[in-house]
């Protein structure tokens, strides 16, 4: 799987997850904070997204050393990992 495809799949997964659990959240930009002062994901929602990415994409940025703070961080993980 190429980087582009992996990142596209990851982005699609994150966007559909956010749309489902935070339908009232503002448009998700690459640098919108995922937690407080941004999308507003709580710790259980972050864990749920982590499991979802593991299932859909095959690897998971949330269990790496640095917790991703934005969609850009998540996509950067797949750029390195792919």
């Amino acid at each position, binding site marked *: 799987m190429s980087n582009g495809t992996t990142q596209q799949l990851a982005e699609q997964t994150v966007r559909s997850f956010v749309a489902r659990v935070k339908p009232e959240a503002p448009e998700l930009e690459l640098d919108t904070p995922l937690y407080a002062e941004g999308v507003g994901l709580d710790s*259980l929602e972050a*864990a*749920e997204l*982590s*499991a*979802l990415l593991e*299932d859909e994409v095959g690897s998971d940025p949330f269990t790496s050393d640095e917790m991703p703070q934005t969609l850009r961080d998540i996509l950067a993980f797949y750029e390195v990992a792919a």
Partner: protein
Amino acid sequence: MSSEPRVVIITGGSRGLGAGLVQSYLDSSDLVATCSRSITPEVEKWQQEVPERFLFVPADLSKSADCEAFVKAVIDKWDHVDVLVNNAGVARDGILGMASEDDIDAVVDLNIKGTLHMSRLVSRRMLARNTGCIVNISSIVGRSGYRGLAVYSATKAGQEGMTRALARELGSRGIRVNAIAPGYLRTEMSHGLDEGQLQQIVRRTPAGRLGEPDDVARACQFLTDPRNDYITGQVLVIDGGLTG
């Protein structure tokens, strides 16, 4: 009560109490996955009798990679997990002053770390479904202690602490976490006790006998019954009244 079969993981189900738990959930028409380090005649029997409802994966749950492979095999086959019973455990008896580092590591790595790894892998998948049950099989020695079982008792008390913490952590998502503390059962785990000790236990037990795997399995079915969704963070003692 839903008529859909539940997907049930029972760790360490190849013999003793674990095998009794597997049989109980097969009897209630559920889909049952279990693991152990080696295969047993009971496992071979289920593989032949109910291949479509039974999954066995060889695994040493003290290794996190084995936990991941086991959970992945269950998800690949049945998509999700409704019930996790953390039953796998090991005891090494002997006074603590004579225990080796390996004795301590073996018991802690399986009983505590294996239970945490499995609960982590399964609970994160339960989050998306907003439902699920985890039952940890602890032991009355985690509460009362027993000479020669300091490490084992520590891990069992630890499992009960984990039970209460995880119940608080996951309650808002409809995931319930409870524990069962069995007394002395007529299984291999009690083989460290000699006949005299077992007879003494029976004399002190109001129910007048040792426990059977099915005594514990019925309690486990009760805790994992979806109708009992107001019970979480509890430890149910099944010991014939010994510590009552």
